[in-house]
């Protein structure tokens, strides 16, 4: 059966051998053919020599969650042949390097073996040993072009762009590509039943990873100070920020930098720098991952209590501890929501894709300054490091940052006396003053006990008064965080709540369940504290499934504690092995829960 624009590939490689470039070209070419596509990079925590996989899913319906069935596996890593052969769905195909004979034990009667002598082909063309290894990747790309019917003109165009200044390299690529292509055309029935055909579904779309989009958001939000410590998978946020700043933030007259990026000595210093810069009036942020969040705990509490804005991007990876640094998870929700000792509560934002990384990064700065408090942007490895097809980013030139209540020199001059923590506005926020502006605004910021005038205190009532306002302030932020995205159906039997990168899998699962007559409303929360819409959605459903990627049901915990919904109706669907969520996880989870419920009602006492 021919399946056009609806299949999944898995490319099994060894890391550090240059496959990323070939795999990226394939993904990009499909994107340029106008076909919805997604690519998931499953790489090891290592630099060279270990197994790495790249999964490409092509879906004319626009389903971009991770697929679990592979129609075609490209097995380039002899070490993982065994596993890789098993991953091909029955009736599918396996492409392998036939320079060496395949182990007879790996034979599977239900799949097609496509042998391409990649090493031999490349050894014939190239003499340099490095080139021979690198070009094998381009050679299998060539075969795939033939097998899947990739538009060769687009590939040419991509190579042209990529190697515009490196002719020799372009030629090598062309020769390898051609060799793989020719071999496939000659030896196989091309294209395969799974194949591509141009569409126009990606016209107003871009291919972007979440970390790049986050960095771009920080640039557009007007962040000028960034401090960080390298950690996978957040490092590329700062790499991108650096690049964008170099491009857009050089002073046109002096050539100097309208920004300052500090590679800190560790995460404690990174958050300290952000707090110092924010205290001093700059928009500042850091990006990190789980271990960094743990290390930042003490100073996050300081920023909370002293009411200093701070934007913290947490690109989550699989915890606890070092965990699996190159695997995704949504495991830092509670660690961020209640970060630090004592009574603390923070604002969290949950982008679901790179496009939202951009918009929510900007929202993060506005919220941090409006509420004078740390704000966490909770991305994850799947969103942050994989390329996603997203709607083109839009920018309203009328946007101006919400700097919150900051007093200028004139205002201070007119005041009888400035008090830092009163009077409060309807958000329960008081005005702050910045250093260097006016002596009347001089204020001694402290993480120790203080009263509403900003004075040091150890008196219970004075202390409590400020703490109570902070609690009210946090609740007030519920009105200000982005509203959840709710999809309501007629006759929905239950609700599904999810967040962040679960979105594509949930949407696909809901569609699939609907085909089986199982109708669900969905809500994707985008911010914490939860607002009225979240309350209303939970109230409107007797049964709610909470889909999230961690072991301990952290979103469910937050919903339980921070809404009025009875916890009994919130059931968890948890997937936390470290790979991006697939719709099957959700479908299986929902059906299992439903069966349990009906079994439960049958035996109800």
């Amino acid at each position, binding site marked *: 059966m021919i399946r056009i624009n609806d299949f999944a590939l898995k490319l099994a490689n060894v890391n550090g051998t240059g496959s990323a470039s070939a795999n990226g070209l394939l993904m*990009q070419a499909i994107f340029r053919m106008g076909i919805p596509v997604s690519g998931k990079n499953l790489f090891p925590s290592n630099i060279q020599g270990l197994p790495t996989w790249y999964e490409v899913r092509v879906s004319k319906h626009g389903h971009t969650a991770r697929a679990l069935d592979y129609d075609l596996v490209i097995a380039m890593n002899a070490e993982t042949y065994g596993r890789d052969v098993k991953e091909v769905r029955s009736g599918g195909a396996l492409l392998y390097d036939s320079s060496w004979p395949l182990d007879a034990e790996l034979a599977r009667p239900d799949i097609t073996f496509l042998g391409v002598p990649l090493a031999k082909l490349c050894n014939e063309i190239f003499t340099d040993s490095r080139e021979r290894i690198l070009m094998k990747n381009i050679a299998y790309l060539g075969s795939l072009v033939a097998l899947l019917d990739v538009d060769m003109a687009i590939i040419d165009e991509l190579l042209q762009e990529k190697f515009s200044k490196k002719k020799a390299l372009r030629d090598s690529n062309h020769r390898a590509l051609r060799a793989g292509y020719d071999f496939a055309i000659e030896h196989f029935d091309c294209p395969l039943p799974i194949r591509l055909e141009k569409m126009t579904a990606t016209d107003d779309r871009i291919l972007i990873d979440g970390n790049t989009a986050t960095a771009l958001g920080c*640039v557009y939000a007007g962040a000028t100070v960034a*401090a960080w410590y390298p950690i996978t998978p957040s490092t590329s946020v700062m790499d991108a920020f650096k690049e964008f700043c170099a491009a857009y933030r050089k*002073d046109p007259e002096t050539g100097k930098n309208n920004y300052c990026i500090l590679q800190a000595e560790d995460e404690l210093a990174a958050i*300290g720098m952000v707090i*110092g810069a924010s205290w001093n009036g700059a928009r*500042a942020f850091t990006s990190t991952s789980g271990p960094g969040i743990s290390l930042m705990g003490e100073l996050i509490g300081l920023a909370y209590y002293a009411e200093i804005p701070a934007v913290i991007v947490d690109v989550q990876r699989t915890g606890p501890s070092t965990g699996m640094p190159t695997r995704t998870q949504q495991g830092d929700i509670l660690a961020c929501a209640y970060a630090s000792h004592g009574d603390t509560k923070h604002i969290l934002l949950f982008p679901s894709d790179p496009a939202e990384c951009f918009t929510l990064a900007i929202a993060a700065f506005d919220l941090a300054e409006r509420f004078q408090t740390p704000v966490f942007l909770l991305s994850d490895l799947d969103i942050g490091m994989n390329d996603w097809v997203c709607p083109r980013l839009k920018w309203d030139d009328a946007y101006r940052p919400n700097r919150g209540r900051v007093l200028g020199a004139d205002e201070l001059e007119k005041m009888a006396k400035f008090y830092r923590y009163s009077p409060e506005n309807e958000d329960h926020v008081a005005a702050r003053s910045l*250093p260097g502006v006016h002596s009347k605004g001089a204020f001694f910021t402290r993480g120790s006990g203080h009263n509403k005038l900003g004075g040091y205190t150890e008196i219970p009532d004075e202390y409590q008064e400020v703490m109570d306002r902070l609690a009210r302030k946090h609740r007030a932020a519920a009105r200000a965080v982005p509203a959840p995205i709710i999809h309501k159906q007629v006759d929905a039997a239950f609700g599904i709540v999810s967040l962040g990168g679960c979105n594509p899998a949930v949407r696909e699962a809901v569609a699939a369940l609907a085909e089986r007559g199982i109708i669900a409303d969905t809500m994707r929360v985008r911010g914490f504290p939860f607002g009225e819409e979240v309350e209303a959605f939970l109230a409107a459903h007797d049964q709610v499934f909470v889909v999230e990627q961690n072991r301990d049901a952290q979103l469910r915990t937050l919903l339980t504690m921070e809404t009025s919904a009875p916890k009994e109706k919130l059931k968890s669907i948890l997937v936390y092995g470290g790979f991006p969520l697939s719709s099957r996880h959700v479908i299986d989870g929902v059906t299992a829960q439903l069966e349990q419920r009906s079994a439960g009602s049958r035996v109800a006492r």
Partner: protein
Amino acid sequence: MPSPKPNVVHPHLRPNQIGLTIRDYEGSMSTLCAGCGHDSVTAAIVRSFYELSTPPHLIAKLSGIGCSSKTPTYFVGGAHGFNSAHGRMPSIATGANAANRALTYIGISGDGDSLSIGIGQLVHAIRRNVDMLYIIENNGVYGLTKGQFSASADIGSKSKRGEVNRFGPIDPVSLALDLGATFVARSFSGDKEQLVPILKAALSHKGFALVDVISPCVTFNDHEGSTKSYLYTRKHLLQLISADFVPFAREITVDYAPGTATSVRLHDGSVVRLRKVEADYDPTDRQRVASHLELHRNRGEIATGLLFVDKQASDMHDTSKTTEVPLAQIPYEKLCPGSAKLDELQKTFR
């Protein structure tokens, strides 16, 4: 040696260049123990800012946690202050400085705050040459937590409870020198005549100025057996170099005999004049400074004075090529690339 005091009763109640009296540089009442060395350092800071005529609102004062770290409340009430977290002042000051390079930064820390929990941040603030004055009010103990040894306590030093310290001390001065600090000095809280000029020079230095001030803790470390007591310090103090700082704006002739003084021109154009107490002392030769320190340490002497200064230092902003306008003050319009640029950029995301 300081310039001779004029013959008036309250010389410092006279307005300085910007019309402020010394009162304007004071802060709220100290809540430290009566006689605490830190209060003397506070007084020296007050006088230094007054004499430098720094506008209070252009000063940012930061600290960690400890008795020493409480002191920023006690000086320049008209300046913004930040009593942060234990050992984290260097990073917060670094970020603050990144955001607004136009202010004068003064960080106050203790030996516990700087040499134990905060040593990583201190080391890296030195390495970045953050433009600030960093004072360690060094008493060899954790004052606020009641007298445990700090990492600057000397071997054999006795605590009030009678314990004897057995771990070698970390000397912030030699550490800073080793790390390439661009301004390194040491003084004694009880010696305002030496301390004030050093502080003024440090405040005018462009880059990280470390000033280690021996500042006895009268409550927990001023007994016999302590090597950071008033008595011990007075006995073992060696004034290596005395610095008289003269701001460029009001340069005057001072009575230094030529040949016994060496001038260092600081980045803001001001000049520090150093008196060589020892003939072969040159505070710009890092290598020999270190040997000198070691020499005196071995003799049981505490070398004080402006010990090292690097005239060529480029600070964190130079290194980072930051623009001159404080980042916190650049209008948003200059920071946002706008929609056209975004559209253009997105062509590459296809």
